[in-house]
């Protein structure tokens, strides 16, 4: 049952194999005339240990998945289970109740019917545990024995361990890729479920957003996501970029072209700290500091309708958050423009700023654009700032002083709402997430291709 015990067992076996193989390899060393092996003793040791561990771990992974099914199968075969309710919630509740008592997680049963099942459970768990331990031992022993018998003074354990190392590294990198795929697949399934209830046209082109998680007969006209897309673009791609592009670019230019090395070594990390501030802290800052300032300023110039939650406040703070992304990409690509270009322009009698404007920035433009695209994809996926400062009202307006909402905000709102999980209002979160995922993926792919082509141009 418990994979931890099995894993510890496998590790113990592996250690034993490791020590035994090492000892064996040292004994070869005395036998061989020159005392030279095809591989160092440690490689022999790792070879045997891996042959024990890898099959055992694979077995444990499979076993931890099938063992609970074996247990419940054997419990249901018990005569005491015959009078359980046939299907549904109650049946599951009774079984879970009995299981948790049997595993010692709860002191006593709630349901009288479960009482009779505790003992069969306990028995079944004990049996599967013993079976698991035996199989782990057998597998570990077989692997160890087979590999141990292959050890010879001229055995190439080194190259075999090398191959195993490569395999482990491939596995590690696959985890990230498979996770991305898994996210995409689960998003896709839930999105398909959503679109079976609400048509994609209503969702993608409707202009009214206001799903009611409580309604039994959801109204498709209240699932129009255009106001959310607009709010996302307006805050993340327009207001935030108006702040981030000039500031990021100018700071990159200052850092690469004007700052002395001493200044640069201070300023660059300081700027990068901005990227390390948790977004929730930016959220406080936006909601508690910037939003009131924006509102007061708006009222001072005579706009009395200004609300305390506004797209402008969220966008401004988001822009500041994004500055390091823009500036570090711009910095890299300006620094990647060959020194010869800069010298060539300066030698023509151009000033530093003319050189930057006419030669360096145009030459670095692809990299700068890619940085901006990455920044946009980061900004439109940002959640905390808008949750705290932009408001929840799905307004379709160009007035930056009004409250607006974004895709990410509504994902949070819908998933943490009161609706049941199969209600379209909750499922709409997945459809929104899917759209957001596709857009940011697209932006990232384009940005990476642009950067790649730019690199090729100079190498």
């Amino acid at each position, binding site marked *: 049952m418990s994979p931890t015990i099995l894993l510890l067992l496998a590790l113990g076996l592996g250690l034993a194999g490791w020590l035994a193989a090492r000892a064996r390899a040292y004994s070869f060393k005395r036998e061989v005339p020159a005392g030279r092996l095809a591989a160092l003793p440690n490689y022999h040791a790792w070879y045997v240990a891996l042959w024990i561990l890898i099959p055992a771990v694979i077995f444990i992974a499979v076993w931890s998945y099938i063992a609970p099914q074996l247990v419940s199968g054997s419990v249901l075969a018990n005569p005491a289970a015959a009078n359980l309710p046939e299907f549904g919630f109650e049946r599951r509740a009774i079984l879970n109740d009995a299981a948790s008592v049997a595993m010692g997680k709860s002191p006593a049963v709630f349901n009288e019917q479960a009482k009779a099942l505790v003992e069969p459970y306990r028995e079944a768990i004990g049996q599967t545990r013993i079976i698991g331990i035996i199989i782990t031992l057998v597998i570990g022993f077989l692997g160890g024995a087979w590999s141990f018998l292959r050890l010879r003074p001229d055995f190439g354990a080194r190259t075999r361990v090398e191959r195993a190392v490569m395999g482990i590294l491939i596995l590690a990198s696959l985890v990230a890729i498979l996770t991305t795929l898994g996210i995409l697949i689960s998003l896709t399934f839930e999105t398909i479920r959503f679109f079976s209830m609400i048509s994609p046209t209503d969702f993608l082109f409707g202009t009214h957003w206001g799903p009611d998680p409580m309604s039994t007969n959801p109204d498709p006209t209240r699932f129009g996501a255009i106001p959310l897309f607009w709010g996302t673009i307006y805050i993340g791609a327009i207001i935030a970029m108006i702040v981030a592009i000039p500031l990021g670019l100018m700071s990159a230019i200052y850092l690469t072209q004007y700052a002395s090395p001493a200044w640069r070594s201070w300023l660059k990390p300081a700027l990068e700290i901005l990227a390390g501030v948790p977004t929730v802290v930016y959220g406080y800052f936006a909601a508690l500091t910037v939003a009131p300032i924006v509102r007061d300023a708006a009222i001072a110039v005579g706009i009395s309708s200004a609300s305390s939650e506004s797209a402008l406040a969220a966008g401004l703070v988001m822009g500041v958050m994004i500055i390091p992304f823009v500036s570090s990409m711009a910095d890299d690509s300006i620094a990647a423009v060959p020194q010869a270009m800069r010298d060539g322009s300066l030698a023509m*009698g151009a000033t530093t700023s003319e050189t930057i404007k006419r030669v360096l920035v145009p030459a670095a433009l692809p990299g700068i654009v890619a940085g901006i695209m990455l920044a946009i994809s980061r900004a439109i996926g940002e959640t905390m700032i808008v949750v705290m400062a932009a408001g929840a009202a799905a307004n379709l307006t160009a007035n930056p002083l009004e409250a607006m909402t974004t895709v990410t905000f509504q994902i949070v709102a819908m998933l943490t709402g009161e609706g049941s999980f199969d209600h379209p209002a909750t499922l709409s979160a997945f459809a929104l997430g899917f759209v957001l995922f596709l857009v940011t993926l697209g932006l990232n792919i384009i940005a990476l291709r642009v950067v790649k082509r730019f690199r090729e141009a100079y190498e």
Partner: protein
Amino acid sequence: MVSNQPSADTMVPTVEFADANSDLTPKMSARNVCVYYGEKKAIDDVSIDIQTKYVTAFIGPSGCGKSTFLRSLNRMNDTISSARVTGDINLDGEDIHAMDVVHLRARVGMVFQKPNPFPKSIFENIAYGPRIHGLADGKQDLDEIVEKSLRRAGLWDEVKDRLQESGTALSGGQQQRLCIARAIAVDPEVILMDEPCSALDPIATARIEELIDELRGRYAIVIVTHSMQQAARVSQRTAFFHLGKMVEYGVTSDIFTNPREERTKDYITGRYG
């Protein structure tokens, strides 16, 4: 080319500056110039006169400071923060360190070791200098400057139909002639060339050498080269640098046939360097 070289007896002995012929006032003159990179002295007390309508070659083994000295003639060493230049350098009798560096570099152009056209069209590469210095009155004038510069650099016939193509798409030799045309476009008085052929094949090199000879009548040209044959082919004056010092300076044919210094002789005969 060698055939065009003025015969030795018409030349001024340029080593004893005190004896310099009065009707040949130097275009640029350096006196007691030292260049430091941080603590390291890269150029030690160099004095030299550069005359217009001649090609002056700086030769010497790698690391002897010839490029460093060349770069101090248009203050390109200013862009290296650790570099420091002492001594006097004059252009037409005017101290270059007192001049606005922008004006200095417009009068003293430079061509680099590796062709470095801007990633812009051929036209824009040439138009760059005239634009920033405001030399052209309107589009037509600019067109004329571009054509004239490309003609002088011997590139016009090859590129006249594709002026809007990128300058980086040209071959290496064409790129270097584009860079020369770019330097010419602002109508400089001196052109500094820092090993302009070292990244080029022999045919492109021959073409550039021919071009240098054609340009000689109009500008003072200073060329750094590590090829002694090239110095002998294109220059009329040669300065030999060694370990940061200028060992010998004189008429090219004298330097190559009858060097006064033992070190020059050793270098020229290939004993080191």
